[in-house]
């Protein structure tokens, strides 16, 4: 156990020294990793924010039923009792065509124009809140109620939220693909840095092999180096995103005040941040492992 610990401590310290001994080179590698990673992670944050934004605006999805203009009161009562018994309807309210006209007059400021109209062009309407907000149920409900004879048109208010949702899904796929590609670049960065290190430390590796170093002993500092570089790169990506969010949030606050909305950008969650760090560390480790396995066997004592 203490031998194991001493070996790992030795490898860790060695890796740290190697990172520190070439500050400019390390800084550039870390910057490359950070920038490469801040792209997919940044888009991810943007999407998460868009989603919370859509949640805030749409609230409970509502279904509007517009009745035919010539619908009689008996038809309205019929629909009312139908809705009361419907299992998927949680609540509903009735807006008569007269009160709709009143609201429109007040809200639009077009009272004079509306007064000039011959009759009331607005239909009676029901606004329904469904008991189950899954898009499938809502769609089924919309189709079913739209079939009722006095109903002219049934409309889901959350249609735009659905569109946004599928847009977000597309965006997540793009993030995944971009992340995959850029992860590969992180592996490549680690691979090449380690390759250069191995070449410059040829003598040291050869001597270590001659005096009884195992493959693991020689490999370990390189693996630590790769993981460390990857993790610091991940931290750089995190900082870049933080800065981006901070700057955007300032601008956004003004914009949101205009729309009277209280919306703040939120940062990567603790869980997401840890995942980012661990994943980039793992990628660096993997690149180092590939490089070491690929190059170390070529250095045999002469």
């Amino acid at each position, binding site marked *: 156990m203490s031998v*194991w610990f*001493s070996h790992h401590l*030795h490898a860790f310290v060695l890796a740290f020294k190697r990172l520190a001994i070439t500050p400019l080179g390390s800084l550039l590698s870390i910057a490359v990793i950070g920038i490469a990673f801040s792209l997919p992670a940044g888009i991810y944050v943007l999407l998460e924010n868009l989603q919370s934004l859509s949640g805030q605006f749409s609230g409970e999805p509502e279904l509007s039923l517009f009745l035919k203009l010539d619908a009689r009161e008996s038809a309205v009562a019929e629909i009312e009792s139908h809705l009361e018994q419907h299992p998927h309807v949680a609540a509903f309210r009735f807006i008569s065509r007269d009160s709709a006209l009143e609201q429109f007059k007040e809200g639009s400021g077009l009272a004079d124009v509306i007064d000039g109209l011959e009759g009331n062009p607005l239909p009676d309407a029901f606004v329904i809140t469904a008991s189950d907000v899954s898009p499938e149920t809502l769609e089924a409900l919309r189709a079913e109620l739209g079939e009722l004879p006095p109903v002219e048109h049934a409309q889901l208010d959350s249609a735009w939220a659905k569109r946004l949702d599928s847009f977000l899904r597309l965006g997540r796929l793009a993030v995944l693909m971009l992340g995959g590609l850029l992860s590969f670049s992180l592996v490549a960065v680690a691979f090449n840095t380690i390759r250069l290190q191995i070449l410059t430390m040829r003598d*040291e590796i050869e001597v*270590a092999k*001659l*005096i*009884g*170093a*195992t493959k693991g002993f020689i490999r370990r500092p390189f693996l630590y180096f790769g993981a460390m570089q990857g993790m610091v790169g991940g931290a750089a990506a995190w900082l870049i995103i933080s800065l981006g969010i901070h700057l955007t949030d300032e601008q956004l606050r003004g914009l949101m005040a205009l729309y009277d909305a209280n919306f703040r950008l939120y940062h990567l969650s603790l869980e997401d941040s840890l995942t980012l760090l661990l994943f980039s560390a793992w990628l660096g480790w993997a690149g180092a492992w590939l490089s070491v396995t690929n190059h170390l066997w070529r250095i045999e004592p002469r």
Partner: protein
Amino acid sequence: MISFSQVYKRYPNGYEALKNVSFTLEAGEMALINGHSGAGKTTLLRLIAAIERPTAGSIIVNGQNVSTLKDGAIPFLRRNLGLVFQDQKILFDRTVFQNVLLPLQISGFSSRAAAGRVRAALDKVGLLDRESARPITLSGGEQQRLCIARAIVNRPSILIADEPTSNLDADYARDIMDMFKSFNQVGVTVLIATHDVELLGGMHQRMFTLSHGELIA
């Protein structure tokens, strides 16, 4: 204990470095391997440390059959051997102390226990006052002593040296040889390859003589 039996070493280009070599060196013995350059002295030593593998025959070192040893077991064989290389293989980017420390780091010593051992080894070869020096600032004889310190710091049971006195003048060379003798006196098995027999004229040691890959005496 080192035992060769009917060992052959043939290189891919057809050159036969060793032909039918058999000998046994008991634990605690000291012997010299002597012969013209290209006689196969270095090859013989490299076979003991499994730096190369024999084409035929068996080599037993400390009860282990080196010729059939798995790659993963080789590091542990080498930790029981003290090796002094012909080309020294000193790491010039670290201090004398760090050069000697390396074998202990490889064996997983804690740094405190290791420091004591490094100083003891440096003391034995007379380099204690140079521990923080850079190897490049050492004289040829001092560099050779640094290699010996690195070879003995792990307290190996077998010490193997390839031409440890080449490029040294007679006084230095005699010092080095005396050092090996004193290690032998405390029970270490010592095997030294050298082409410089005259220098060792005064020594009454067991001697193997190689000529064109064959053991002739």
